């Protein structure tokens, strides 16, 4: 009797269909990523072009659209760092950080406290106060400039960094208050009630329970406040008059006189250098965003 062998090709067909499907999926994914990469590069091209332009002469900057510079001339970086003022760019970087770091710290403390108050407590006058906060968010900055200037002049805070740091200590940055309030509204009160039963008071609940959960929001505050303060031009413009106290935003524009020849490679080189801290902060904070969301404190 002859043994009938199972028709193996049947299994092969299934496998090959699977491999075809799998290969198809890979190809489609590849196409997707290529398109995303292409569009992303296109949108980022101006920034990429800046990098190339920091090595070019004026004539090349204004006539070419291509990225690759004809020569790798680092004088843009050297001269830009030295600047045409009495101080090097290192001084201006330091000044920027002297404004940013205290400001971030006080912003976090004040905004979290204020948001905690609005989100978790009911008190007399809560609704009108919240309306005032919303109203102040709507005010255009221009309206506040001169009155604030006059106020700080009376305090004697002109030409210091206090006009930047002290208002932030009083939760002037309403955007962050809103953000944390919304974040808190999404957190169920179970753990706080448990902690209350265990004997925590309001501040202890905030510190031990809520702040770890609020990490993503706090990281967002750090990133946004860092970038906005780094880019703030009008504030330092009117409050600071000593060149030694200028932050980067003012120092970058110091070589742009109205009728004078500007060596654009210097300005562009320093702009790129000034971008680096913001980029570093943003990319290192991304990790914490994801961590914070993935390891949420509420279980079950």
């Amino acid at each position, binding site marked *: 009797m002859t043994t009938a062998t199972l028709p193996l090709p049947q299994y092969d067909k299934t496998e090959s269909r699977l491999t075809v499907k799998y290969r198809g999926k890979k190809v489609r994914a590849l196409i997707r990523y290529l398109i995303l990469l292409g569009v992303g590069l296109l949108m980022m091209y101006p920034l990429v072009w800046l990098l190339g332009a920091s090595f070019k002469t004026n004539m090349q900057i204004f006539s070419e659209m291509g990225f690759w510079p004809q020569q790798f001339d680092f004088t843009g970086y050297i001269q830009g760092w030295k600047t045409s003022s009495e101080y090097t760019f290192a001084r201006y970087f330091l000044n920027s950080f002297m404004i940013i770091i205290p400001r971030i710290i006080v912003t976090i403390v004040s905004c979290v406290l204020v948001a905690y108050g609005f989100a978790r407590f009911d008190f007399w006058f809560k609704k009108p106060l919240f309306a005032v906060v919303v109203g102040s968010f709507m005010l255009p900055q221009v309206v506040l400039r001169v009155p604030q200037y006059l106020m700080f002049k009376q305090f004697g805070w002109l030409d210091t960094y206090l006009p930047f740091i002290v208002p932030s200590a009083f939760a002037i940055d309403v955007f962050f208050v809103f953000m944390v309030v919304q974040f808190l509204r999404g957190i169920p009160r179970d753990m706080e009630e448990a902690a209350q039963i265990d004997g925590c008071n309001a501040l202890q609940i905030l510190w031990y329970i809520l702040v770890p959960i609020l990490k993503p929001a706090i990281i967002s505050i750090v990133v946004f406040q860092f970038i906005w303060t780094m880019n703030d031009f009008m504030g330092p413009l009117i409050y600071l008059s000593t060149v030694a106290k200028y932050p980067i935003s003012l120092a970058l524009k110091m070589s742009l006189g109205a*009728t004078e020849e500007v060596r654009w490679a210097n300005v562009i080189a320093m702009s790129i250098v000034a971008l680096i801290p913001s980029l570093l902060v943003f990319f290192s904070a991304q990790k914490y965003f994801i961590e914070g969301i993935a390891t949420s404190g509420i279980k079950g």
Partner: protein
Amino acid sequence: MKTSVKKLLVVVFAIGFVAQVAWAADTELRFSWWGGDTRHKPTLEAIKLFEAANPGVKIKAEYMGWGGYTERLATQISGANEPDITQINWAWISTMFSKKGDGFYDLYKAKDVLKLDEWGPNINYGVRNGKLNAIPVSFTSRFYLWQKNTLEKVGIAIPKNWDELFAAGKAFEKLGPEYYPIDGVYYDVFLMSHAYLMQKTGKQWIDPDTDTVILTKAEALDWVKFYKKLSETRAVVPHKLRLSIAPPEAPTEQQQQWVTGQWAGNYTWDSTFKVRMSSLPKTTACDLGEFLSIPNPKNIGFFARPTMMFAVSRNSKNPIIGAKFINFLLTDPDAVKVLSNTRGIPMAKSSYDLLAKEGLFTDLDMKALAQLKKAKIDPPSAWLESARIQELLRSIFETVSLGKSTDEEAVDRLINETNQVLKSIQ
């Protein structure tokens, strides 16, 4: 602590305090200016020279780029906190800070430390209601700057009058649709047509004596038609085309067409010649053209005014020293040698002579000065440079260039709406 020790400590602290106050006898004046890399270093050196010549006086330098300078100064003045000596624009005196003439310290009170004859009748640029608000530093006017290479390619000479300019427009077309004789920045084209208005009628849009518009409808219509003719005959880059390439305020030297010579000419301040030529390849030769005009003009139509001025704050605690400092910067030979032409060609006679002797004026500078000397200069109304009027003229002429308003509507706005705006802002 025993009473005697306490008393001793009090005495020691008191002496220390008084000594501190006595030590702080250095008078400090704040001096602010705007500029770029080439201006900051020489000015800091000149300040050091002044401090060396005047022991006990310290000048605190508060400098920055142009961007934001007006806003900062306006905020400081509104808070009575402006620097003792400031660099200001000529138009700011009558339109912003010193409408009644008392916005700045009256420098006539300091005439013992100021060599006022150096400026002669030009000192009047800084006078408002009989008070000397500021001293002019340098003078600038608009001229026609041409790239000779492109003109040679077309085979024509630099246009000497309007007809030759229109002919050039036609000739440039032969080189290609990208080629135009003059870069048509809308404000430049406005000023070119304004020069025509002055040449034809002898009047300016905003009359400097009355600060109102005294044009007749016919004169304004002629003006608007000439403005349109400049684009229609391809004499200037049409506004629509330029807008599609760059923002309206984009400087000429940053445009690719200027760098490659496709746009051959520019109607610009003589203080910006260097900037315009800074992005050109070394092989491009530039020259000054004749001031374009009609034959037998009523007024040649130069748009000329002080580039910048130095003023002393009315809240300054040391106005005489401030005036002395201004005099030093503008007339002292050492200071002038250091500052040279970083603020333009100086108006003070001795400084001008000194720099001329050192050979610091380029060929283009000399040609420009020669053109100015031949002409009778009528300063424009300061209101022309005020923000509201600039906005208004831009809106009127942009809509005309883009075909969004008829000539008659433009004429009506140029006369009636302008007078209304002027009345409301004065």
